[in-house]
């Protein structure tokens, strides 16, 4: 397993047809010192090249679930988990998994933009340089591609050598997305990406998501229901560490199957 994830082939894009499963979560339970039952027995299949939204009240475990997909939960003190998260037929929760390689296939964007205190170019190129061995021209091409994909190229193409911290909040967030996109990940995890942005930037991010889903699987955690409804194809509703309901967004928002889902959506609580 150690060896397998080392050499990765980027899979060819299969034309529209069967909706394949990108990530399959099976009976995932997770706990840590401050919260022994953060996730309880979750099973869900995330569809490929679509946007899946995870919604729920604060503290229900949305971010925790998201962070399982790229093993970022390992950073928490005393974390323990059971169950499986299957990507490409491999359980990434296995201790022998090459976590660094995993994180290049599953990218993440955090809630607050966290660009490195480096230039715009350096930020986007960071992940590429880790893999090593790219020539400067290749790097420049890949950086430009990533910035275009994040709809930021036009705004920064003359400022590539400026400090990334000089950009506005919205631009910084798109920069961080570009940084993740540069590695051409299979899956993109977005943890409340627009919650610290103004409405205009939020709108631009949502547009971006819509474009990106053609080529990436996107899982987005959001506390903003309207955003979930606008942006996602499928929605998962969580409550108290459990997955209450999962299905097509339209269905969830118009004819939810569970009472709790309906209560949340109609704003009766949370």
């Amino acid at each position, binding site marked *: 397993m150690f060896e397998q994830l080392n050499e990765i082939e980027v899979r060819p894009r299969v034309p529209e047809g069967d909706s394949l499963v990108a990530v399959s979560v099976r009976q995932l339970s997770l706990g840590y010192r401050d919260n022994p039952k953060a996730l309880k027995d979750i099973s869900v299949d995330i569809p490929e090249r679509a946007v899946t939204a995870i919604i729920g009240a604060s503290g229900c475990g949305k971010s925790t679930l998201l962070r399982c997909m790229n093993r*970022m939960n390992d950073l928490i003190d005393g974390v323990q988990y059971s169950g499986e998260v299957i990507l490409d037929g491999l359980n990434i929760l296995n201790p*022998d998994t090459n976590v*660094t390689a995993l994180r290049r296939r599953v990218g993440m964007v*955090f809630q607050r933009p966290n660009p*490195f*205190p480096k230039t715009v170019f350096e930020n986007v190129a*960071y992940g590429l340089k880790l893999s090593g061995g790219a020539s400067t021209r290749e790097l420049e091409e890949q950086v430009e591609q990533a910035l275009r994909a994040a709809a930021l190229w036009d705004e920064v193409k003359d400022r590539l050598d400026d400090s990334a*911290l000089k950009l506005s909040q919205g631009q910084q967030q798109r920069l961080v997305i570009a940084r993740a996109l540069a590695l051409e990940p299979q899956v993109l995890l977005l943890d409340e990406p627009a919650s610290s942005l103004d409405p205009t930037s939020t709108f631009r991010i949502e547009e971006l998501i819509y474009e990106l889903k053609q080529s990436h699987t996107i899982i987005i955690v959001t506390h903003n229901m309207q955003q979930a409804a606008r942006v996602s194809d499928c929605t998962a509703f969580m409550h108290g560490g459990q997955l209450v309901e999962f299905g097509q967004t339209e269905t969830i928002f118009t004819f939810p199957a569970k009472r709790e889902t309906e209560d949340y959506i109609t704003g009766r609580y949370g």
Partner: protein
Amino acid sequence: MPVTNWRHVKSVSLGLLIRVASFTVIFALLGMVVQMMVVAAPIFAASTLERIDAPDEGRDTPVSRTESRDADLTRRTYWVSKGGWQLKGTPGNPWLWVHDQTAVRLNVSELPSDFSIAQLVGHQRGLAVLVGNTLEHFHFSQPISINDVPAVERVKTVVMGSDIVALAGHPRLAVVALATSLSEIQVVDFRNPDTNLRIQVDVAIDRIVWESPSLIRALTSSGDPLLFAFRATDIGGDWRRLLSPIQYEGYPSEEYLWLPLPSAQAAEPKFSVVPLVFGTLKAALLALLFSAPLSLGCAIYVGCFVSEAQRQRVRPAIDMLTAFPTVVLGAIGLFWLAPRFGEFLSALIGIIALFPILAGLGVFVVRGLGWRWVRHDALDDWPLRLLPLVLLVIALGATAGLSGAARLPGGSLEAYLLSTGLSISYFNSLLVGIVLGLAITPTIFSIAEEAIHAVPRNMAAGALALGSTPWQSYRDVVQPLALPGMIAAIMVGFGRAAGETMILIMLSGNTGIMDLSIFEGLRSVSASLALELPEAPKTSSHYQVLFAMGLLLFGLTFIVNTVAEIIRARVRMRVRGL
């Protein structure tokens, strides 16, 4: 209402009390510097010569007695006893050494025979000889063996502008007072001939005498004496002599020397600050060399790779080192390390030399145990898990080093090094560096760790999410931000090492030599202050020079600390904006 008035009064008086107390404190703390400057100030004063009014006196002054004893100086025979010989000289004739008992006579070729006046100076250590219009200063140096004749060598030559009619040698210093034919009184300090100390009078001078080390009496033809006060510091009135190389009496060349209390009777005191500053810097730099890898390594690990809970445990554990006051460390160094220093060094070399091999071995061992044993997610336990490995490395390396040393020609490291001609002191700089390095490690660790920990975790997490290894995220994201803080930590450590006294006194040998070799001893400013101040008379130049050195040390540490604090403040502001 009386109650409110009383409370108000109380508040005002308490406020007053607080103000008084704090002003006293602030005044005392800042006044420290002022007081030290006041004490040290005289050392920077130039020599002075000024005319003072003669007090009323009768005929029977000490001068008249001296006067009747001294006939015309230009025709006098001079002699001085030195180590069983007598030096005799008469103007116009060659000088001779005459042995007390055997009456053997030896020509003294170094001294000129065509002189007009000769005077002893400086506790009879030296001779000032007037040849024409040139003053020549000679110094007697100790003979090698008892019956050898003392050596005489010319130290300085000063050309005077006009004819000299009278000459008198200072009893203590290498200084002469003279009167010229143009009615000028001049004082020539052989240590610093460039000083221009002269006073014009309007009467002709017959004779000139040193009544006391600071009083000159000039006798005029009219009989009224003129008095002059002379003041000079022990460093010859030029503070730059504290810093420049000087050819002292009896030394073949210019040197930087600190010997304020020379062992030889009444030899010239030597005040050069340079060897002491050199010693301080040498010790501090060596200490940094040993301490930096240790403390920075700890700081990186604790600041970046460890969980909060563990950090609260490990930080105090490392701070336990501060439980040993520097006296204790010095004593341990003195009694345990110094006797075994050769073996310790061999062991250390063994460990360092073998380290790459042992590290590679460690990798294979771990690979055999499976990567699970050292997963990135179990970083908290590593110091404990690695402890057996560290002990193993130390044991293997030490044995390798010791057995390797035993195989060297001579049987041990010291013997081998001695045979190559290297001189090794029992108290050497390396010993000081090691113990001092240990003493400053907690300081550097504390500041550096704080700097590393201050970098937001968010940023490091961002790097991890892009697939970097924990070390890469530290190196690429955390370290650039924490680097100024780490540098500040090193600076503070340097300041502490420069100011440390006990370890230096106990382990440096306190030899005032300036040698780049790490196997030789050194003498630091702090040790000199501690050892010499209690004995220095409070009016002496020695005392003042010591205070000046105290100010120097104070200034050095103050500047270093201020720069470090500025760096840290800047970093704090930068990190806050992230």
